[in-house]
Each structure stands twice: as C-alpha cells, then as structure tokens.
C-alpha cells in the first residue's frame, strides 16, 4: 500500500492511495494563494491600478508592461505526471466542496476515465463555487496571456515572492464553464454511511465530518484492512450534521489533513469580535465589507447577525450578499435538511426553512445580487454590510468595494476566511484609511481536539502533512501546536511517496454451502478445531469462492483397455499433512484386534521398533515419525490405515 502526496498544503490536500490494486485519489484542492502575487482584477476602470507603470528591468532591457496583472492560479499539483499518471486513477473521493476546486485539472484532458464520489451538497455547492470562480475570471476584460515572465531568466529578476515561486510553468489559467460541467458530470452521488464497492476489492464509505454541508471523511477498507481519511472535520456545533467519530475506530492507518489553519483563534470568540466590530462601524455610520466565500461560514455569520441584530441596535442597515451564485447558495442551503444538525433538521419538520436567512430575505434585511452592476447600483443604500468574494481581494466584486471604501476611516473590512494572509491580501490597496479587522473563523479541528480524537479512535498509524509535526515557524515554542503521538506520525511533504506500514495477511473468501457441509472438523485442542479443505478456487470481480471439487466423470467402460499396465494415478494434489504421535500401547491393541498377534517391541533412543514376526514387517514408531517397512502391498495398506487412525490430518 502506497500513498503519493501530490500536495503539501495541509488544508488543500491531494493524495493518491494505492490499495489492493485500486488507485484512489483523496481530494484535489486548488491552492489560490498564488493569486496574491498578482494585482487585483478591477471590475470597473481603476485609477489606482491603471496608473501603475509597467515593470521595467533595471537595465531597461525587459519591459513587461502590465501583463503581470494577469491572474494565474497556482495548481498545487504542479507536476503530478512525474509522480503518477493521472489516467490511471480509478476513483476520486471528495471530502468537501473546498477540496474539489482542482477537479477539472485532473479529470479533463488527462485521459482520466474514473468516477468521482461526493455527497450531493458537496457537488451542488462545489459547482456553485466553481461557477463563481469562472464568472469572476470571465467578466473582466481578457488581456493577452503573459508567459514571458515565466522564463527563468526574467523570473529571476522579478521582485518579491514571484522571484522565489517554484514551478511557475505549472501554474495554469482558470478553467471554463465547459470544463466544470464535464468534470462534474463524472461525479456519482453518495450518502453518509453508504457502502460503495470498488471493483469488489475495496469498500469506501463517506462519514459526516461536521465541517460544512455534506462534508465527509472517508473509510477505505477491505475485510481486513481499514484506512481512514480525515479531512476538514469539526467538532463545533455549527450548521452541518455532527462529525461521526466512532466509525473511525480500529483503523490501521489514519490519514489526517485539514486541521484548523488558525490554531490560536477560538471561533466563538472571533464570531463575537466580528459582531461587535460590525456593530461599531454601522453605528458610526460606516460600511462593513466582509470578503468571504459564497458558502460555508457565511451561513453562520448571517445566523449570528440575525440573532444579534436587534440587541445590537443596528437599525435598518441592510445586508448585501453579492456574488454570481449568491441566490443559488442561499436557496441550496435550505434544501439539504438531511445534512444539517438536528436542531435545523427539526425545523424542516414544522415545515420551516432551516436557516434564518430566509426570514432576513423576506423582511428585506438581506438582499442578494449577482454583481455590483444592474439592480444593485440603484438599490444600494449606505451604511450597509456587504458580503462578497473573493477573500483573496484579487478578483470578484470585493475589489470594487476595497477601492470604493478604502479611503474612509469610517469603513471597516473584516476578514473571516482563514485561507489568506490578510496583510498580503491588503498589500496592493495600501495606503488604506479604512479599518481592517482580522477575525478568522476556522471551525476545523485544533490540535487539542485532534489529540483527544486520536486517543479515542486509536489508529495504528497516523499519516499527516509535515507542518503538523512541528510547531508553526512563527511560534516555535508552542509545542502544543503540533501533533505529539506515540508512535510518532508519519509526515509527508509534496511529491513524497510513502509506503504505508501494514501488511495484508488475510483475504475474505466464501465457501459454498455444499463445500462447507462436506467438511469434517476435528478438535485438535480444546476450542480449536481443524478441517482439511480441498476445493476449487473461483475468482471473479475480485471476489473469491471455494467450491467442491467436481467428481470426475466415470471413465467410459472401454473394452480395448485390457492392458496389463494400468494407468498411473492422476497427478493429484498432495495429501494432508499429518501431526501427532502414535502411542505404543493403544497401537499394539489395535494391531491385536486386526489379527496381528506376534509383535516384538524393541526400545530405541527415539521410540520403538515393532517387529511383526509372522508378517515379516517392521514398524518404527517415533515421536515425529512412523516408518512402515513391508514388502506386501495389502499388509502395508492395512498398517497404513491403522497408523493413520492415530494421527491428525491437516
């Protein structure tokens, strides 16, 4: 069993597991942090960015114009081909909608012919997030694609982090709608605790992971081996169904990814800070900008605001949710009752929508728009709260609001998504007058929770990304911010190939009832019985069945065959092994019973020699062997059978 690690990013994993001749990809996250290397893509003509000069190298030989503002998405799977041929992947298991954003890069134009498994909310919301990304990219004017900066000579001269970026040739342009649709058409829906058979060899099962709508951990198992894949799990009570922990028990290997990115921040505390900062700004007449993803924590933020609104005296400040998929995201959140926590589920029985944002919309407190163009520009009132993407501040409607509100110190931007460094995200907008508040809300497991969880489920081996095995570089003294396990976890980094340390020793096989009935068990020790099995093996679709040996058809009576020499015996499989010993006295008694009276017993170093005087035969009895010397075939056969009575056959 091998694990190919295509991504080193702990929360956007992409690993490939080879298990019993199946090749299973676990997640394919898309790392968009590379977007931070580029200038924002403004929706409307931007004074700030258009005034920037093109980049000219010191000697003036290279002039890059503004081509560098082109956005590339860094696909972490920069060189998977070297590690693994993507067309050999049989299935892809998706754990949550954030971890499938690279799907089109894997399934399209790579020769991939397998199946993708995901839950329905993961598919639907993942689709929305992909469509949003595509929309963000497609609605800005297309500049020509710039590649010359990727040239090593030029890249070397470039400033800042770009100079040090690795594998820039693997950075790919964003996919399009067609690729998204084609990739998602390969998804097969699964439900929690559904057992999915892969080629009869392996069974995979998604389990609720408590992190987001439809998010799952996966069990990959055969009858004797169990691998758990834990990715993005949460023990906090937010909107999704609680995490299923017990099913992770007794794993041989547990692959652990997707822990919290902000282990030092408590999500509840952050939520409180979010609300109070928001209220303060609104009361002071300022606007609040919340750069966020279009699904996930935003549902909790809206619910929190719904409860907090009246007490905080927010007045009539409207909430705007702006995204090409805002409406769909809000609508979809209401139809996945089965995937929600109990509390929300029971609302549906009333029947009421599970999330209170339905009421916010009904009472016109929350309005959603596909973009800042169109209705929004005429209906827009200030002060207000705007939820919009993308949280990297490099593309999407958020770019516009940063420019619009950045100059006033009345306004506040509150960062809630933990995926991007907020300082890097803000860099191109400096100098900024608006307040910046960082309240990252990451509900995923922290080190304390995961240690407790692992103690409970007790996997034999734990595999995790390397960063989890040491404290974060900025807080090297915090030994509580790492995994400390006995035995130590096996760390992996990007492009590593790990051999998972367990050996398969058994396989499930079925004995047909006819065969089972024909077995003759004998008790060897108290509580242990054995039976010799001679059977024909049938293997089909990786399932093995033992059936009785067919009785050879009786040879047709042929008259020609009156030859003296008979046919030699068929090449038969070996006889059972013998075990035990032949005890002297009972054996003598048995011989006696069969008319063999004259037996002279001679004692030797290892046993006895029996001389059968009348028959002129000799039997040597020893602890671990019996030797029959007889020239008469019938006698030999008789003696053989008598000896066999005392021995166990295996």
């Amino acid at each position, binding site marked *: 069993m091998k694990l190919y690690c295509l991504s080193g990013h702990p929360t956007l994993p992409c690993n490939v597991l080879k298990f019993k001749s199946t090749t299973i990809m676990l997640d394919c996250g898309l790392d968009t942090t590379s977007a931070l290397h580029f200038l924002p893509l403004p929706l409307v003509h931007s004074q700030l960015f258009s005034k920037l000069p093109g980049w000219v190298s010191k000697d003036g030989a290279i002039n890059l114009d503004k081509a560098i503002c082109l956005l590339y998405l860094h696909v972490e799977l920069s060189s998977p081909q070297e590690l693994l041929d993507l067309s050999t992947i049989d299935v892809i298991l998706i754990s949550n909608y954030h971890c499938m954003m690279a799907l089109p890069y894997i399934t399209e134009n790579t020769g991939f012919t397998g199946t993708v498994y995901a839950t329905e909310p993961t598919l639907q919301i993942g689709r929305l997030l992909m469509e949003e990304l595509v929309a963000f990219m497609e609605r800005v004017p297309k500049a020509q694609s710039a590649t010359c900066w990727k040239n090593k000579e030029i890249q070397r001269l470039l400033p800042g982090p770009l100079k040090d970026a690795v594998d820039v040739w693997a950075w790919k342009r964003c996919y399009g709608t067609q690729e998204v649709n084609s990739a998602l058409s390969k998804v097969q829906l699964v*439900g929690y605790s559904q057992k999915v058979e892969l080629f009869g060899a392996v069974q995979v099962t998604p389990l609720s992971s408590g992190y987001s709508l439809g998010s799952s951990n996966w069990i990959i198992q055969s009858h004797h081996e169990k691998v758990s894949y834990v990715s993005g799990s949460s023990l906090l009570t937010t909107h999704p169904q609680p995490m299923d922990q017990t099913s992770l028990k007794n794993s041989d290997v547990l692959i652990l990814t997707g822990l919290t990115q902000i282990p030092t921040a408590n999500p509840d505390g952050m939520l409180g800070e979010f609300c109070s900062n928001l209220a303060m700004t609104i009361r002071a007449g300022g606007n609040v900008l919340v750069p966020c993803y279009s699904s996930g924590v935003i549902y909790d933020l809206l619910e929190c605001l719904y409860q907090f609104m009246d007490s905080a005296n927010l007045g009539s400040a409207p909430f705007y949710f702006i995204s090409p998929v805002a409406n769909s995201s809000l609508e979809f959140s209401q139809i996945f009752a089965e995937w929600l926590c109990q509390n929300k589920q029971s609302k549906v029985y009333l029947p009421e929508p599970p999330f209170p944002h339905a009421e916010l919309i009904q009472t016109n407190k929350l309005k959603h728009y596909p973009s800042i163009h169109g209705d929004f520009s005429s209906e827009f009132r200030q002060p207000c709260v705007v939820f919009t993407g993308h949280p990297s501040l490099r593309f999407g409607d958020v770019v516009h609001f940063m420019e619009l509100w950045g100059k006033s110190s009345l306004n506040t931007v509150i960062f809630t998504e933990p995926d991007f460094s907020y300082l890097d995200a803000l860099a191109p907008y400096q100098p900024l007058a608006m307040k910046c508040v960082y309240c990252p809300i990451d509900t995923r497991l922290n080190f304390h929770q995961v240690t407790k969880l692992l103690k409970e489920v007790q996997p034999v081996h734990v595999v995790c990304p390397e960063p989890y095995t040491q404290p974060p570089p900025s807080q090297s003294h915090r030994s509580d911010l790492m995994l400390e396990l006995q035995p130590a976890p096996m760390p992996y980094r990007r492009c590593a190939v790990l051999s998972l340390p367990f050996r398969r020793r*058994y*396989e499930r096989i079925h004995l047909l009832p006819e065969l*089972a009935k024909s077995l003759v068990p004998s008790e060897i020790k108290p509580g242990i019985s*054995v039976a010799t099995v*001679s059977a024909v093996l049938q293997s089909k679709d990786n399932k093995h069945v033992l059936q009785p040996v067919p009785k050879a058809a009786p040879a047709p009576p042929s008259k020609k065959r009156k030859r003296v020499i008979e046919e030699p015996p068929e090449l038969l499989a070996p006889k059972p092994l013998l075990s035990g010993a032949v005890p002297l006295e009972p054996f003598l008694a048995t011989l006696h019973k069969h008319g063999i009276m004259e037996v002279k017993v001679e004692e030797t170093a290892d046993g006895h020699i029996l001389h059968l005087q009348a028959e002129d035969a000799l039997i040597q009895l020893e602890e671990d*062997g019996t030797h029959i010397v007889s020239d008469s075939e019938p006698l030999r056969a008789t003696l053989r059978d008598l000896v066999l009575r005392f*021995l166990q056959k295996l």
Partner: protein
Amino acid sequence: MPDIKVTPLGAGQDVGRSCILVSVGGKNIMLDCGMHMGYNDDRRFPDFSYITQNGRLTEFLDCVIISHFHLDHCGALPYMSEMVGYDGPIYMTHPTKAICPILLEDFRKITVDRKGETNFFTSQMIKDCMKKVVPINLHQTVQVDDELEIKAYYAGHVLGAAMVQIKVGSESVIYTGDYNMTPDRHLGAAWIDKCRPDILITESTYATTIRDSKRCRERDFLKKVHETVERGGKVLIPVFALGRAQELCILLETFWERMNHKAPIYFSTGLTEKANHYYKLFITWTNQKIRKTFVQRNMFEFKHIKPFDRSYADNPGPMVVFAAPGMLHAGQSLQIFKKWAGNEKNMVIMPGYCVQGTIGHKILNGQKKLEMEGRATLEVKLQVEYMSFSAHADAKGIMQLIRMAEPRNILLVHGEAKKMEFLKDKIEQEFSVSCFMPANGETATVETNPSVPVDISLNLLKREMALGGPLPDPKKPRTLHGTLIMKDNSLRLLSPEKALKELGLSEHQLRFTCHVQLQDPHSDADTLTRIYTHLKSILKGYTIQHLPDSTVMVESIVVKVSSTAEEPNLKIILLSWSYQDEELGSFMSTLLKKGLPVGLC
C-alpha cells in the same frame, strides 16, 4: 437449513393496512404499520396479537420500518407503539418523518372528533410515537445492531417514499413499499441496484394493468376538466393532500396558464400550503427537472390555485376543487361530493386507487344509489371518471424492478388475490423463480443457502491464483488444499504447513519402505537405468530423475537397486516414499512387481 419467514399481518392478498413481519437470520422486522381505509372496526388495524398475546412487542421486534407516509402504510403506528407497546427503533426517511405525524393527526381528528370514536390514539401518542423514529437517508447503511443492517432506495410514488433492503450476514430481503417505475411531473422513478436479495417483497396494486403513456392520460384528464368547466360544471378531484395532489396541481397550473382559463381552482384543507412547503424543503426528493430549476422557479409555488373555503362549494359557476381524502371515505371531499352529486353537469375525477368499502370504490363500480348514514340515500348523477394517476408500478414496472434486483424469490403483497395470481404465473414463467402470495396471517418460508465467509491467508490465495493461471481450465480444475482453523468464532484457511506452525504442532512423517524382488540379468547400474527408462515411459507428467548416487527419484520417491554376490541376477529393488506420495508409491510397487518389459534396453 437457515430460512427467511415472511408473514403479512396486513396487505396479504389485499390492499390496505400494510404490515409485514420478516424473520431473517434470527432478526424480526416489521415492515410498515398501516390502517385499512375500508373498515371502521377492529379490522382497521393489523392483528398484532399474532406476534404476542400478552402485551408489548418490544422484545419480539428488532426494528420497524415505514416505507412512506400514506396511512395504509403508517396509520397504525401510534396504536402499535403506544397502545400495544413498542419502544424499539422505527426507521423512516426524513420527508416521511416530517409528513407522517400530520396525516396521523388529521386521521385522528376525523375519527375521534368527527365520528366520536373513543379508544383511539391521542395527539400525545402521535408525538410520543414520533420520538421513537430514527430518520434515514437514501443509500445510507444503517446498522440496527451488529448484524442487522438496512438501506433505503428511492421509490418514487410519493415524497420520501423508500424501498428498503434488510440484510443479515449474506441473507437479504428487499421490501418495495409502494413504488413507481416511471418518473412523473414531480417525482423521479424508483431505482435499485442488482443486489440479488433472497426475497423481493413487492406491491402488486396494478398487477394486471399495463398503462398507456402518461402523456395520454394527462391529455385525457385536461380534456375532461376543460370540457366540464366550459359547460359551467364543477369538477371535484378527491386527492390525498400530499402526493398526487401536487402532480395534478402542477399539471393544471401550467394548463391554466397556457389556456388563460379564468375558472377558479381551489385546494381544500389548510394542509395544502404546508404540504407545498414540504415539497419546497425536500426538493432533493423530487425529479431532476424540478431540482435543476428550483432556484429560478419553484414549481410548488402556484399562481392559479387558491385555498378553498367551505362556503365556495355553493358558489355558482364552474370551478375545480381538489379535496382530501382521496377515496371519498370521509372529510371534505365527501362533503363536497354530497353537494354536487345530484347535478349531471358536474364531474368527479378519481385519480387514484380506491379501497373496497369506500364510496370511491362504489361509484367507480357504477353504483348509482349510495346508502349514507342515517338511512338516507344519495343519487349519483354527476359524471364519474377514473384516471389512474396513482403512482404505483404497473405489471411492466414490477417486471422491470425484478429484472433490476434479480431476486431469488418473489413475494407479492398489497394487491388483490386474483390479480396477484395472474402476476405470479407470469413471474414464474418469465424468471423461473418461486413466487409467493401469502394471505394475512399466513407464513411464507424461503430456504436460504448462505455461503460461509472465511479468511484465507493471502499467501495461500496468491500462490493458488498464480498457479491457477489467468484463466481456469474447466477440464482440469485445480484443487486448493488448505486447513481450516476454527477458533473463537473465527474461521481461517491456511496452508497445512502454516496451520501446523500456528497450532504449535509438529509434523508427523509417515514413510513406507518396500522391497521388490526381480530377476534381471544385468548389472545393478543397468537395472536401475532400465527401471528409469520403464518408469519414464509410463509415468508421463511426473518428475523422474536419475541421480548420480545410483538412485532414481520419482517425485520424492526413492528407488534403489541392490543384489547379493551370491545371486547377482536377483535384484532387490528398494522403494521408499512418504505418505504424501502414497498413491504413486503404491502404484510403483505394484508396477515393479510385475517385472520389467522384455523389449526394454
């Protein structure tokens, strides 16, 4: 021999009060717990005294599974759990769990409040009963206990309807509940994988019917409504609040919009709006088209269909009214029917199946005079139309499901005996599997032949597979030899050598030695060569070696030749073999005793 027993307490050769007991692998499961619409006495509920005479059922049942929210499938549930007594788990899907208590409460109100019956379950009992419900999702494998697992499949029929697979070890049963194999305007078609159950328990409501295409029926329906409304008549469509109602509403709504009709459409009972709300929240259970477009336009928000008030029934002019219940046995639909029955301009369209004993059933059979309570008679002058919109599989659909699941046995329930008989013959002919149709209280037993799961050592398996080659030779099957170790309920198959080692036993060598005397006027070495040649010519396919230390080895059998100085021509051939080569050793000693053939060089 292990077997599976199936006993219908209700719905055996009958439609109504579905309740089927299944015993499989030592587990007892109750499938559905319904009421009979055709009776108002004890026969209304299944006879639970079959399970036990004295009291509570908890210890006799491992679980109860409800397939969908129709009262003939869940109507007796509070009676069973609260009045007879059952505290174990009750499984149903989320939509069923949401809607079932509402219908139960409705049913209770009609029976107790309107008809004044006592000794019936109370509202509190419905609530207590629902607390015992565990919701399940489609395709989720629910482990009821260590051995019993259940899994739900999509059944179409109504919102949240499910088929269930019950599995203990390698034995399994599928119960379909009610299902529909063709997608309709709001639901998808039932689907199941090739799970090869030991028994498929299927409904057979439309066992003898093969329905024409849905489009024709829809056109027919719209035409009839249209004509009646045009001539100023009123149309009554008795429906159950959930299910067909939504399908027909979608149909009429789009028709009204297209034709620009002005006649009002009403929907009776306050339940409707709520019902439509359920459809909106459980949209993932509807058909693909509705699911795809729900963000833009929710099909369950109707523009033309307004809530009904009792006083509207006397309004002049045409109108269309959907009213519950669907079989005209009580409630609002019956009241409106009584009002409109006397006018031949009016029409009643029965869109679903009607149970025997209900007024719906009577008028469909052409009865023109109905006896009502208090000796009054009601003359039926209005037109009576029947349109099969109820979402049951027809004969074609049932056969299709059988083909999908490939069951080893089939058991029919939820249908009329005569029709079942016909279908049974057809199934036995086409699939040559046995088909049962027990009556209520009658038990059908099916023997199962489960194979025995064993853990085989991977070494042994791999070795065997490597030796067997990629394709097995049907003429010369290879035999696998192994030792099955049975210890603490575990069964493991190892190679005999490994088994010996594992059990801490030492091998016992059994050897045989035999001398054969032979006259052969050659030197010892030559005799041995002659024996070698002879054996070689006879023992084809065996490994035979002539070793330099003047021995011949046939497999592991040692052959040596010696003679005495006195009689150099009398050779003594020594044969020695172990028990593993017994057949061959025995054959060779017999063979050599016959001497060497003359022509041998």
